[in-house]
Protein backbone atom coordinates (compact mmCIF):
# COMPACT_ATOMS: atom_id res chain seq x y z
CA UNK A 1 0.00 0.00 0.00
CA UNK A 2 1.52 3.32 -1.09
CA UNK A 3 0.30 6.05 1.22
CA UNK A 4 0.75 9.79 1.33
CA UNK A 5 2.84 9.36 4.47
CA UNK A 6 5.67 8.19 2.26
CA UNK A 7 5.53 11.42 0.28
CA UNK A 8 4.62 14.03 2.86
CA UNK A 9 8.05 14.83 4.35
CA UNK A 10 9.55 15.05 0.86
CA UNK A 11 6.63 17.10 -0.50
CA UNK A 12 6.78 19.54 2.46
CA UNK A 13 10.52 20.04 2.14
CA UNK A 14 10.25 20.42 -1.63
CA UNK A 15 7.33 22.85 -1.25
CA UNK A 16 9.26 24.96 1.23
CA UNK A 17 12.26 24.99 -1.09
CA UNK A 18 10.27 26.31 -4.04
CA UNK A 19 8.34 28.78 -1.90
CA UNK A 20 4.99 27.05 -1.65
CA UNK A 21 3.25 27.23 1.74
CA UNK A 22 1.69 23.77 1.24
CA UNK A 23 2.16 21.61 4.34
CA UNK A 24 0.44 19.71 7.13
CA UNK A 25 -2.84 17.80 7.02
CA UNK A 26 -4.08 19.78 4.04
CA UNK A 27 -1.11 18.69 1.92
CA UNK A 28 -1.53 15.13 3.21
CA UNK A 29 -5.18 15.07 2.11
CA UNK A 30 -4.23 16.45 -1.30
CA UNK A 31 -1.55 13.80 -1.75
CA UNK A 32 -3.98 11.06 -0.67
CA UNK A 33 -6.61 12.34 -3.07
CA UNK A 34 -4.21 12.29 -6.00
CA UNK A 35 -2.80 8.87 -5.19
CA UNK A 36 -6.30 7.43 -4.86
CA UNK A 37 -7.06 8.30 -8.48
CA UNK A 38 -4.16 6.29 -9.86
CA UNK A 39 -3.96 2.68 -10.90
CA UNK A 40 -2.01 0.39 -8.54
CA UNK A 41 1.03 0.17 -10.83
CA UNK A 42 1.20 3.99 -11.05
CA UNK A 43 1.01 4.27 -7.25
CA UNK A 44 3.79 1.71 -7.01
CA UNK A 45 5.90 3.68 -9.48
CA UNK A 46 5.36 6.90 -7.55
CA UNK A 47 6.10 5.09 -4.28
CA UNK A 48 9.41 3.91 -5.72
CA UNK A 49 10.11 7.42 -6.93
CA UNK A 50 9.51 8.76 -3.41
CA UNK A 51 11.83 6.19 -1.86
CA UNK A 52 14.56 6.99 -4.38
CA UNK A 53 14.23 10.75 -4.11
CA UNK A 54 14.07 10.80 -0.30
CA UNK A 55 16.77 8.25 0.50
CA UNK A 56 18.67 6.87 -2.47
CA UNK A 57 19.41 9.95 -4.57
CA UNK A 58 20.98 12.02 -1.75
CA UNK A 59 23.36 9.11 -1.30
CA UNK A 60 23.85 8.39 -4.99
CA UNK A 61 24.17 11.97 -6.23
CA UNK A 62 25.53 13.88 -3.24
CA UNK A 63 27.25 11.02 -1.43
CA UNK A 64 25.33 11.84 1.75
CA UNK A 65 23.48 9.23 3.81
CA UNK A 66 20.76 11.72 4.65
CA UNK A 67 17.10 12.01 3.77
CA UNK A 68 16.04 14.75 1.35
CA UNK A 69 14.12 16.61 4.04
CA UNK A 70 17.15 16.63 6.33
CA UNK A 71 19.37 18.35 3.78
CA UNK A 72 20.06 22.05 4.15
CA UNK A 73 18.82 24.56 1.57
CA UNK A 74 22.04 24.60 -0.46
CA UNK A 75 22.23 20.81 -0.62
CA UNK A 76 18.59 20.57 -1.71
CA UNK A 77 19.22 23.09 -4.46
CA UNK A 78 22.28 21.16 -5.55
CA UNK A 79 20.48 17.81 -5.51
CA UNK A 80 17.34 19.01 -7.32
CA UNK A 81 19.39 20.79 -9.97
CA UNK A 82 21.49 17.71 -10.61
CA UNK A 83 18.47 15.39 -10.70
CA UNK A 84 16.74 17.64 -13.21
CA UNK A 85 19.80 17.46 -15.49
CA UNK A 86 20.83 13.87 -14.85
CA UNK A 87 21.68 12.11 -18.11
CA UNK A 88 20.46 8.74 -16.81
CA UNK A 89 16.85 8.38 -17.94
CA UNK A 90 15.77 6.04 -15.10
CA UNK A 91 16.98 8.61 -12.57
CA UNK A 92 15.17 11.42 -14.35
CA UNK A 93 12.02 9.32 -14.76
CA UNK A 94 11.93 8.48 -11.06
CA UNK A 95 12.61 12.06 -10.04
CA UNK A 96 9.90 13.21 -12.45
CA UNK A 97 7.42 10.84 -10.78
CA UNK A 98 8.12 12.25 -7.32
CA UNK A 99 8.06 15.80 -8.65
CA UNK A 100 4.74 15.22 -10.42
CA UNK A 101 2.96 14.26 -7.25
CA UNK A 102 4.63 16.71 -4.88
CA UNK A 103 4.54 19.84 -7.03
CA UNK A 104 1.13 18.98 -8.50
CA UNK A 105 -0.26 18.96 -4.97
CA UNK A 106 1.52 22.19 -4.03
CA UNK A 107 0.70 24.22 -7.12
CA UNK A 108 -2.83 22.96 -7.68
CA UNK A 109 -3.75 24.87 -4.50
CA UNK A 110 -6.52 27.39 -4.97
CA UNK A 111 -4.63 30.12 -3.06
CA UNK A 112 -1.60 29.85 -5.35
CA UNK A 113 -3.76 29.89 -8.47
CA UNK A 114 -5.81 32.82 -7.18
CA UNK A 115 -2.58 34.71 -6.44
CA UNK A 116 -1.68 34.42 -10.12
CA UNK A 117 -5.07 35.72 -11.13
CA UNK A 118 -5.90 32.29 -12.54
CA UNK A 119 -9.59 31.63 -12.54
CA UNK A 120 -10.80 28.06 -12.81
CA UNK A 121 -13.31 27.57 -15.58
Amino acid at each position, binding site marked *: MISAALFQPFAEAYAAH*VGSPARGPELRRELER*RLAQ*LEPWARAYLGLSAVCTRWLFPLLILGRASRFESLDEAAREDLLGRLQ*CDARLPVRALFF*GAKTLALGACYGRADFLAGLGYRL*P
Partner: protein
Amino acid sequence: MTEERDVVVVGSGAGGAAVAATLAGRGKRVLLVEKGGPAAPLPDAMDAVYRYYAHGGLSASVGNCLLPIPTGTVLGGTTQINSGTCLKTPDETLERWERAGTGAFRADEFRRYLDLAWTKLRVTSAPDATATVSSRLFLKGLERLGVPGGHLLPRAESGCVGSGRCCFVCPTGAKQTSDRAFLLPLGRPDGPELALGTELIDARAADRAGGPVRVALRGPDGRRRNVSCGRLVLACGTLRTPYYARLLKTGLGRAAGAGLSVHPAAKLFALFDERVEGWKGVPQGAGVVDPDDPNIRYEGVYTPPEMAAVTMPLEGLRLRSWLKNYGRVATFGWMIRDESRGRADYPLGADSPLLRYDLGDADLARMRRAMRFAGRTFFAAGARQVVLPFNRSDNVFDSAEALERADLSGLSAAQLQMMAFHPLGTCGMGRVVDENLRLAEGVYVCDGSVIPESLGVNPQITIYAFALRLADHLS
Protein backbone atom coordinates in the same frame (compact mmCIF):
# COMPACT_ATOMS: atom_id res chain seq x y z
CA MET B 1 -24.85 -17.21 -24.65
CA THR B 2 -23.45 -15.55 -27.77
CA GLU B 3 -24.92 -12.26 -28.89
CA GLU B 4 -25.05 -11.32 -32.55
CA ARG B 5 -24.31 -7.98 -34.19
CA ASP B 6 -23.52 -6.86 -37.71
CA VAL B 7 -20.49 -4.89 -36.61
CA VAL B 8 -18.48 -4.54 -33.40
CA VAL B 9 -16.29 -1.42 -33.15
CA VAL B 10 -13.72 -1.28 -30.36
CA GLY B 11 -12.74 2.25 -29.35
CA SER B 12 -14.70 5.49 -29.54
CA GLY B 13 -12.04 7.97 -30.65
CA ALA B 14 -11.92 9.69 -34.03
CA GLY B 15 -11.83 6.40 -35.95
CA GLY B 16 -14.25 4.28 -33.90
CA ALA B 17 -17.02 6.81 -33.25
CA ALA B 18 -17.20 7.94 -36.87
CA VAL B 19 -17.34 4.45 -38.37
CA ALA B 20 -19.78 3.15 -35.72
CA ALA B 21 -22.20 6.07 -36.01
CA THR B 22 -22.14 6.05 -39.81
CA LEU B 23 -22.83 2.33 -40.05
CA ALA B 24 -25.54 2.47 -37.38
CA GLY B 25 -27.18 5.34 -39.26
CA ARG B 26 -27.38 3.04 -42.28
CA GLY B 27 -29.27 0.39 -40.38
CA LYS B 28 -26.47 -1.91 -39.25
CA ARG B 29 -26.65 -3.37 -35.74
CA VAL B 30 -23.48 -1.86 -34.30
CA LEU B 31 -21.98 -2.44 -30.87
CA LEU B 32 -19.48 0.28 -29.93
CA VAL B 33 -17.15 -0.84 -27.16
CA GLU B 34 -15.27 1.72 -25.05
CA LYS B 35 -12.95 0.91 -22.17
CA GLY B 36 -13.43 4.28 -20.49
CA GLY B 37 -16.51 6.13 -19.35
CA PRO B 38 -18.01 9.48 -20.27
CA ALA B 39 -15.90 12.60 -19.72
CA ALA B 40 -16.79 15.49 -17.45
CA PRO B 41 -14.70 18.64 -17.02
CA LEU B 42 -12.72 18.89 -13.79
CA PRO B 43 -11.32 22.06 -12.21
CA ASP B 44 -7.84 20.63 -11.60
CA ALA B 45 -5.94 19.79 -14.79
CA MET B 46 -3.96 17.07 -13.03
CA ASP B 47 -7.19 15.38 -11.95
CA ALA B 48 -8.26 15.28 -15.59
CA VAL B 49 -4.91 13.76 -16.50
CA TYR B 50 -5.20 11.09 -13.81
CA ARG B 51 -8.77 10.24 -14.75
CA TYR B 52 -8.95 10.49 -18.52
CA TYR B 53 -5.42 9.97 -19.80
CA ALA B 54 -4.21 6.43 -20.36
CA HIS B 55 -2.15 5.25 -17.38
CA GLY B 56 -2.88 8.44 -15.49
CA GLY B 57 -0.81 10.39 -18.01
CA LEU B 58 2.32 8.40 -17.19
CA SER B 59 2.63 6.63 -20.57
CA ALA B 60 6.03 7.19 -22.08
CA SER B 61 8.41 5.64 -24.54
CA VAL B 62 11.91 4.71 -23.56
CA GLY B 63 15.01 4.73 -25.71
CA ASN B 64 17.60 7.45 -26.08
CA CYS B 65 15.09 9.94 -24.68
CA LEU B 66 12.16 10.01 -22.28
CA LEU B 67 9.06 10.77 -24.31
CA PRO B 68 5.67 11.00 -22.56
CA ILE B 69 2.91 10.06 -25.04
CA PRO B 70 -0.52 11.03 -23.66
CA THR B 71 -3.62 9.38 -25.09
CA GLY B 72 -7.22 9.35 -23.86
CA THR B 73 -9.06 6.46 -22.21
CA VAL B 74 -12.56 7.88 -22.17
CA LEU B 75 -15.63 8.11 -24.38
CA GLY B 76 -14.32 10.13 -27.32
CA GLY B 77 -10.79 8.78 -26.89
CA THR B 78 -7.94 11.18 -27.49
CA THR B 79 -10.29 13.74 -29.09
CA GLN B 80 -11.35 14.58 -25.51
CA ILE B 81 -7.83 15.66 -24.63
CA ASN B 82 -6.47 17.05 -27.89
CA SER B 83 -6.29 20.71 -28.83
CA GLY B 84 -9.03 20.49 -31.43
CA THR B 85 -6.75 21.55 -34.28
CA CYS B 86 -7.75 20.34 -37.75
CA LEU B 87 -5.30 20.26 -40.64
CA LYS B 88 -5.96 18.23 -43.75
CA THR B 89 -3.60 15.52 -44.93
CA PRO B 90 -1.02 17.24 -47.18
CA ASP B 91 -1.68 16.72 -50.90
CA GLU B 92 1.79 15.36 -51.56
CA THR B 93 1.25 12.75 -48.83
CA LEU B 94 -2.02 11.58 -50.40
CA GLU B 95 -0.39 11.37 -53.83
CA ARG B 96 2.45 9.34 -52.35
CA TRP B 97 0.02 6.89 -50.72
CA GLU B 98 -1.79 6.51 -54.02
CA ARG B 99 1.43 5.86 -55.93
CA ALA B 100 2.63 3.32 -53.34
CA GLY B 101 -0.64 1.38 -53.39
CA THR B 102 -2.35 -1.10 -55.66
CA GLY B 103 -5.09 1.27 -56.82
CA ALA B 104 -7.59 0.86 -54.00
CA PHE B 105 -6.49 4.12 -52.36
CA ARG B 106 -7.21 7.18 -54.48
CA ALA B 107 -6.15 10.66 -53.40
CA ASP B 108 -9.14 12.40 -54.99
CA GLU B 109 -11.59 10.10 -53.29
CA PHE B 110 -9.86 10.61 -49.93
CA ARG B 111 -10.07 14.39 -50.29
CA ARG B 112 -13.85 14.08 -50.44
CA TYR B 113 -13.82 12.28 -47.09
CA LEU B 114 -11.56 14.97 -45.64
CA ASP B 115 -14.13 17.56 -46.71
CA LEU B 116 -16.95 15.51 -45.21
CA ALA B 117 -15.11 15.23 -41.88
CA TRP B 118 -14.37 18.95 -42.01
CA THR B 119 -18.09 19.70 -42.28
CA LYS B 120 -19.15 17.16 -39.69
CA LEU B 121 -16.70 18.60 -37.14
CA ARG B 122 -17.77 22.18 -37.85
CA VAL B 123 -14.18 23.17 -38.47
CA THR B 124 -13.60 26.88 -38.32
CA SER B 125 -10.70 29.24 -37.67
CA ALA B 126 -10.41 30.25 -34.04
CA PRO B 127 -12.09 33.65 -33.73
CA ASP B 128 -9.56 36.43 -33.29
CA ALA B 129 -11.13 37.31 -29.95
CA THR B 130 -10.19 33.92 -28.51
CA ALA B 131 -6.51 34.07 -29.47
CA THR B 132 -4.28 33.88 -26.41
CA VAL B 133 -1.77 36.61 -25.63
CA SER B 134 0.91 33.93 -26.23
CA SER B 135 -0.37 33.44 -29.78
CA ARG B 136 -0.57 37.18 -30.42
CA LEU B 137 2.97 37.66 -29.14
CA PHE B 138 4.31 34.84 -31.29
CA LEU B 139 2.58 36.20 -34.40
CA LYS B 140 3.95 39.66 -33.56
CA GLY B 141 7.45 38.19 -33.26
CA LEU B 142 7.09 36.48 -36.65
CA GLU B 143 5.99 39.74 -38.21
CA ARG B 144 8.95 41.61 -36.74
CA LEU B 145 11.32 38.93 -38.03
CA GLY B 146 9.70 39.09 -41.45
CA VAL B 147 8.65 35.43 -41.33
CA PRO B 148 5.51 34.86 -43.44
CA GLY B 149 2.77 32.32 -42.89
CA GLY B 150 1.73 32.82 -39.27
CA HIS B 151 -1.99 32.14 -39.08
CA LEU B 152 -4.93 31.26 -36.85
CA LEU B 153 -5.50 27.51 -36.88
CA PRO B 154 -8.67 25.75 -38.04
CA ARG B 155 -10.37 23.97 -35.16
CA ALA B 156 -13.25 21.59 -34.51
CA GLU B 157 -15.44 23.77 -32.37
CA SER B 158 -18.79 25.42 -32.05
CA GLY B 159 -19.22 28.36 -29.72
CA CYS B 160 -15.78 28.27 -28.12
CA VAL B 161 -15.27 30.99 -25.51
CA GLY B 162 -11.56 30.33 -25.00
CA SER B 163 -11.51 28.55 -21.65
CA GLY B 164 -7.91 27.45 -22.21
CA ARG B 165 -8.58 23.85 -21.19
CA CYS B 166 -8.87 21.90 -24.46
CA CYS B 167 -6.44 19.20 -23.34
CA PHE B 168 -8.20 18.55 -20.04
CA VAL B 169 -11.77 18.03 -21.35
CA CYS B 170 -13.46 21.14 -22.73
CA PRO B 171 -15.42 22.78 -19.88
CA THR B 172 -18.14 24.19 -22.15
CA GLY B 173 -18.56 21.33 -24.63
CA ALA B 174 -17.64 23.63 -27.51
CA LYS B 175 -14.83 21.41 -28.78
CA GLN B 176 -16.19 18.92 -31.27
CA THR B 177 -14.95 15.64 -29.90
CA SER B 178 -15.74 12.38 -31.68
CA ASP B 179 -18.64 11.57 -29.35
CA ARG B 180 -20.07 15.08 -29.67
CA ALA B 181 -19.79 15.08 -33.45
CA PHE B 182 -21.01 11.54 -34.07
CA LEU B 183 -22.63 9.89 -31.05
CA LEU B 184 -24.67 12.42 -29.09
CA PRO B 185 -27.35 12.14 -27.92
CA LEU B 186 -26.30 8.73 -26.60
CA GLY B 187 -28.86 5.98 -27.05
CA ARG B 188 -30.63 7.54 -30.00
CA PRO B 189 -32.45 4.98 -32.18
CA ASP B 190 -30.23 5.45 -35.22
CA GLY B 191 -26.99 5.37 -33.21
CA PRO B 192 -24.76 2.47 -32.18
CA GLU B 193 -25.37 0.48 -29.02
CA LEU B 194 -22.74 1.65 -26.54
CA ALA B 195 -20.84 -0.60 -24.11
CA LEU B 196 -18.88 1.65 -21.74
CA GLY B 197 -16.33 0.37 -19.25
CA THR B 198 -15.93 -2.66 -21.49
CA GLU B 199 -12.79 -4.05 -23.03
CA LEU B 200 -11.90 -6.50 -25.73
CA ILE B 201 -10.22 -9.59 -24.33
CA ASP B 202 -10.15 -11.89 -27.34
CA ALA B 203 -10.99 -11.95 -31.04
CA ARG B 204 -10.97 -14.58 -33.75
CA ALA B 205 -11.12 -13.65 -37.43
CA ALA B 206 -13.75 -15.14 -39.69
CA ASP B 207 -12.92 -18.27 -41.63
CA ARG B 208 -12.75 -18.26 -45.39
CA ALA B 209 -16.07 -20.06 -45.61
CA GLY B 210 -17.78 -16.87 -44.46
CA GLY B 211 -18.31 -17.65 -40.79
CA PRO B 212 -18.60 -14.85 -38.25
CA VAL B 213 -15.88 -12.98 -36.41
CA ARG B 214 -15.90 -14.03 -32.74
CA VAL B 215 -15.30 -11.45 -30.07
CA ALA B 216 -14.99 -11.79 -26.29
CA LEU B 217 -15.54 -8.73 -24.12
CA ARG B 218 -15.28 -8.04 -20.41
CA GLY B 219 -17.89 -5.64 -19.06
CA PRO B 220 -17.70 -3.28 -16.09
CA ASP B 221 -19.06 -6.02 -13.82
CA GLY B 222 -16.16 -8.29 -14.87
CA ARG B 223 -18.42 -10.69 -16.73
CA ARG B 224 -17.43 -12.14 -20.07
CA ARG B 225 -19.63 -11.29 -23.01
CA ASN B 226 -19.36 -13.26 -26.27
CA VAL B 227 -20.40 -11.63 -29.49
CA SER B 228 -20.35 -12.96 -33.03
CA CYS B 229 -20.39 -10.38 -35.78
CA GLY B 230 -19.96 -9.93 -39.50
CA ARG B 231 -17.23 -7.29 -39.09
CA LEU B 232 -14.91 -6.25 -36.30
CA VAL B 233 -13.30 -2.80 -36.41
CA LEU B 234 -10.31 -2.28 -34.14
CA ALA B 235 -10.07 1.41 -33.26
CA CYS B 236 -8.32 1.19 -29.91
CA GLY B 237 -5.58 3.65 -30.79
CA THR B 238 -2.08 3.40 -32.19
CA LEU B 239 -0.60 2.16 -28.93
CA ARG B 240 -3.19 -0.53 -28.19
CA THR B 241 -4.55 -1.83 -31.48
CA PRO B 242 -1.34 -3.73 -32.39
CA TYR B 243 -1.86 -5.98 -29.36
CA TYR B 244 -5.20 -7.15 -30.76
CA ALA B 245 -3.85 -7.31 -34.30
CA ARG B 246 -1.20 -9.74 -33.07
CA LEU B 247 -3.81 -11.68 -31.10
CA LEU B 248 -5.48 -12.65 -34.36
CA LYS B 249 -2.33 -14.55 -35.33
CA THR B 250 -2.61 -13.68 -39.00
CA GLY B 251 0.47 -13.21 -41.12
CA LEU B 252 0.26 -9.43 -41.40
CA GLY B 253 -0.98 -8.92 -37.84
CA ARG B 254 2.33 -10.21 -36.54
CA ALA B 255 4.03 -7.16 -38.06
CA ALA B 256 1.85 -4.79 -36.02
CA GLY B 257 3.60 -2.58 -33.49
CA ALA B 258 6.57 -1.51 -35.62
CA GLY B 259 6.70 1.72 -37.64
CA LEU B 260 5.70 3.97 -34.72
CA SER B 261 6.02 7.67 -35.52
CA VAL B 262 5.10 10.20 -32.84
CA HIS B 263 5.67 13.84 -33.90
CA PRO B 264 8.16 14.62 -31.12
CA ALA B 265 7.16 17.96 -29.63
CA ALA B 266 8.46 20.51 -27.17
CA LYS B 267 7.65 24.01 -25.96
CA LEU B 268 9.42 26.98 -24.55
CA PHE B 269 8.44 29.44 -21.84
CA ALA B 270 9.03 33.17 -22.25
CA LEU B 271 8.77 35.87 -19.60
CA PHE B 272 7.28 39.22 -20.63
CA ASP B 273 6.77 42.54 -18.84
CA GLU B 274 3.08 42.52 -19.67
CA ARG B 275 0.40 40.23 -18.28
CA VAL B 276 0.00 37.19 -20.51
CA GLU B 277 -2.46 35.10 -18.52
CA GLY B 278 -2.10 32.18 -20.88
CA TRP B 279 -5.18 30.48 -19.44
CA LYS B 280 -7.40 32.94 -21.30
CA GLY B 281 -8.13 31.95 -24.89
CA VAL B 282 -7.61 29.01 -27.24
CA PRO B 283 -4.21 27.51 -26.35
CA GLN B 284 -3.53 26.15 -29.84
CA GLY B 285 -5.07 29.02 -31.76
CA ALA B 286 -2.15 29.93 -34.03
CA GLY B 287 0.63 28.25 -35.96
CA VAL B 288 3.30 28.56 -38.62
CA VAL B 289 5.51 26.22 -40.62
CA ASP B 290 9.25 26.76 -40.23
CA PRO B 291 10.37 29.07 -43.05
CA ASP B 292 13.34 26.83 -43.91
CA ASP B 293 12.26 23.35 -42.87
CA PRO B 294 8.74 22.16 -43.73
CA ASN B 295 9.16 19.27 -41.29
CA ILE B 296 8.88 21.64 -38.33
CA ARG B 297 5.48 23.05 -37.43
CA TYR B 298 5.05 25.58 -34.62
CA GLU B 299 1.71 25.64 -32.80
CA GLY B 300 0.39 27.39 -29.73
CA VAL B 301 0.23 25.56 -26.45
CA TYR B 302 -0.58 26.41 -22.86
CA THR B 303 0.29 24.61 -19.66
CA PRO B 304 -1.80 25.31 -16.53
CA PRO B 305 0.32 26.45 -13.57
CA GLU B 306 -0.01 23.22 -11.59
CA MET B 307 1.37 21.32 -14.58
CA ALA B 308 3.97 23.91 -15.51
CA ALA B 309 5.50 23.37 -12.07
CA VAL B 310 6.17 19.81 -13.14
CA THR B 311 7.05 20.21 -16.81
CA MET B 312 9.18 23.37 -16.73
CA PRO B 313 12.82 22.26 -17.02
CA LEU B 314 13.79 24.29 -13.97
CA GLU B 315 14.39 23.47 -10.36
CA GLY B 316 14.55 25.04 -6.93
CA LEU B 317 14.95 28.80 -6.71
CA ARG B 318 14.68 29.37 -10.47
CA LEU B 319 11.46 27.38 -10.60
CA ARG B 320 10.15 29.43 -7.68
CA SER B 321 10.85 32.67 -9.51
CA TRP B 322 9.23 31.60 -12.79
CA LEU B 323 6.12 30.24 -11.11
CA LYS B 324 5.70 33.38 -9.04
CA ASN B 325 5.58 35.30 -12.31
CA TYR B 326 3.59 32.72 -14.24
CA GLY B 327 0.90 35.27 -15.12
CA ARG B 328 3.54 36.96 -17.32
CA VAL B 329 4.77 33.78 -18.97
CA ALA B 330 3.94 32.95 -22.61
CA THR B 331 4.42 29.54 -24.17
CA PHE B 332 4.61 28.21 -27.70
CA GLY B 333 5.38 24.74 -28.99
CA TRP B 334 6.45 22.85 -32.07
CA MET B 335 6.38 19.36 -33.46
CA ILE B 336 8.65 17.52 -35.83
CA ARG B 337 7.60 15.39 -38.77
CA ASP B 338 9.87 12.64 -37.59
CA GLU B 339 12.07 10.35 -39.62
CA SER B 340 12.79 8.21 -36.55
CA ARG B 341 10.63 5.16 -35.89
CA GLY B 342 9.82 3.24 -32.74
CA ARG B 343 7.72 0.23 -31.86
CA ALA B 344 5.12 -1.01 -29.39
CA ASP B 345 5.38 -4.43 -27.74
CA TYR B 346 3.22 -6.05 -25.09
CA PRO B 347 5.14 -8.31 -22.71
CA LEU B 348 2.56 -7.58 -19.98
CA GLY B 349 -0.57 -7.45 -22.13
CA ALA B 350 -2.67 -4.81 -23.86
CA ASP B 351 -2.78 -2.50 -20.85
CA SER B 352 0.96 -2.10 -20.56
CA PRO B 353 2.57 -1.42 -23.92
CA LEU B 354 6.34 -1.22 -23.90
CA LEU B 355 7.12 1.68 -26.21
CA ARG B 356 10.59 2.11 -27.62
CA TYR B 357 11.67 5.15 -29.59
CA ASP B 358 15.11 6.56 -30.36
CA LEU B 359 15.23 10.12 -31.63
CA GLY B 360 17.53 10.10 -34.66
CA ASP B 361 20.16 12.69 -35.54
CA ALA B 362 18.08 14.50 -38.18
CA ASP B 363 15.13 14.90 -35.81
CA LEU B 364 17.44 15.99 -32.99
CA ALA B 365 18.90 18.66 -35.27
CA ARG B 366 15.37 19.86 -36.06
CA MET B 367 14.60 20.07 -32.34
CA ARG B 368 17.66 22.25 -31.80
CA ARG B 369 16.73 24.45 -34.73
CA ALA B 370 13.10 24.79 -33.59
CA MET B 371 13.93 25.87 -30.05
CA ARG B 372 16.25 28.58 -31.30
CA PHE B 373 13.67 29.81 -33.83
CA ALA B 374 10.86 29.92 -31.25
CA GLY B 375 13.09 31.70 -28.73
CA ARG B 376 14.18 34.23 -31.35
CA THR B 377 10.54 34.88 -32.20
CA PHE B 378 9.54 35.57 -28.59
CA PHE B 379 12.54 37.86 -28.11
CA ALA B 380 11.48 39.75 -31.23
CA ALA B 381 8.09 40.20 -29.57
CA GLY B 382 9.68 41.67 -26.44
CA ALA B 383 10.40 38.72 -24.14
CA ARG B 384 12.74 39.39 -21.21
CA GLN B 385 13.82 35.78 -20.77
CA VAL B 386 13.15 32.41 -22.36
CA VAL B 387 13.58 28.88 -21.02
CA LEU B 388 14.48 26.35 -23.67
CA PRO B 389 13.24 22.78 -23.26
CA PHE B 390 16.35 20.95 -22.24
CA ASN B 391 17.56 19.78 -18.88
CA ARG B 392 20.77 21.67 -18.37
CA SER B 393 21.52 24.54 -16.05
CA ASP B 394 22.25 26.90 -18.97
CA ASN B 395 18.73 26.71 -20.43
CA VAL B 396 17.60 30.25 -19.48
CA PHE B 397 18.47 33.09 -21.85
CA ASP B 398 18.24 36.83 -21.19
CA SER B 399 18.55 38.15 -24.73
CA ALA B 400 18.29 37.21 -28.37
CA GLU B 401 22.04 37.73 -28.70
CA ALA B 402 22.77 35.25 -25.92
CA LEU B 403 20.43 32.78 -27.58
CA GLU B 404 22.14 33.18 -30.96
CA ARG B 405 25.56 32.73 -29.37
CA ALA B 406 24.53 29.59 -27.48
CA ASP B 407 26.10 26.37 -28.67
CA LEU B 408 23.26 23.86 -28.79
CA SER B 409 25.21 21.31 -30.84
CA GLY B 410 26.12 19.31 -27.76
CA LEU B 411 22.49 18.78 -26.74
CA SER B 412 21.62 15.09 -26.64
CA ALA B 413 18.19 13.55 -27.09
CA ALA B 414 18.27 12.46 -23.45
CA GLN B 415 18.54 16.07 -22.31
CA LEU B 416 15.48 17.28 -24.20
CA GLN B 417 12.22 17.84 -22.35
CA MET B 418 9.80 16.59 -24.98
CA MET B 419 6.38 15.06 -25.34
CA ALA B 420 4.65 13.39 -28.28
CA PHE B 421 0.97 13.79 -28.99
CA HIS B 422 0.42 11.96 -32.28
CA PRO B 423 1.44 8.30 -32.17
CA LEU B 424 0.82 6.84 -35.64
CA GLY B 425 1.73 3.99 -37.94
CA THR B 426 1.84 0.78 -35.90
CA CYS B 427 -0.59 -0.97 -38.28
CA GLY B 428 0.41 1.10 -41.29
CA MET B 429 -1.66 0.90 -44.47
CA GLY B 430 0.20 -1.15 -47.05
CA ARG B 431 2.32 -2.82 -44.38
CA VAL B 432 -0.10 -4.38 -41.86
CA VAL B 433 -3.54 -3.48 -43.21
CA ASP B 434 -4.43 -3.23 -46.88
CA GLU B 435 -5.66 -0.06 -48.58
CA ASN B 436 -9.20 -0.81 -47.42
CA LEU B 437 -7.85 -1.10 -43.86
CA ARG B 438 -8.53 -4.83 -43.79
CA LEU B 439 -6.34 -6.76 -41.38
CA ALA B 440 -7.82 -10.26 -41.61
CA GLU B 441 -11.02 -11.97 -42.77
CA GLY B 442 -13.79 -9.72 -41.39
CA VAL B 443 -11.41 -7.62 -39.29
CA TYR B 444 -10.51 -3.98 -40.01
CA VAL B 445 -8.41 -1.32 -38.29
CA CYS B 446 -9.40 2.33 -38.10
CA ASP B 447 -7.36 4.67 -35.93
CA GLY B 448 -4.05 6.50 -36.07
CA SER B 449 -2.21 3.21 -36.39
CA VAL B 450 -3.15 2.87 -40.08
CA ILE B 451 -1.48 6.15 -41.08
CA PRO B 452 1.63 4.77 -42.72
CA GLU B 453 4.04 7.64 -42.11
CA SER B 454 4.65 10.67 -39.97
CA LEU B 455 2.08 13.19 -41.21
CA GLY B 456 3.57 16.50 -40.17
CA VAL B 457 0.11 17.85 -39.31
CA ASN B 458 -2.31 17.15 -36.46
CA PRO B 459 -3.84 13.84 -37.52
CA GLN B 460 -7.45 13.87 -36.32
CA ILE B 461 -9.04 14.94 -39.61
CA THR B 462 -7.07 12.26 -41.46
CA ILE B 463 -8.30 9.60 -39.02
CA TYR B 464 -11.92 10.78 -39.34
CA ALA B 465 -11.58 10.66 -43.14
CA PHE B 466 -10.25 7.10 -43.00
CA ALA B 467 -13.23 6.19 -40.80
CA LEU B 468 -15.84 7.69 -43.11
CA ARG B 469 -14.19 5.95 -46.05
CA LEU B 470 -14.19 2.63 -44.19
CA ALA B 471 -17.86 3.06 -43.30
CA ASP B 472 -18.67 3.42 -46.99
CA HIS B 473 -16.57 0.36 -47.78
CA LEU B 474 -18.34 -1.73 -45.13
CA SER B 475 -21.77 -0.52 -46.18
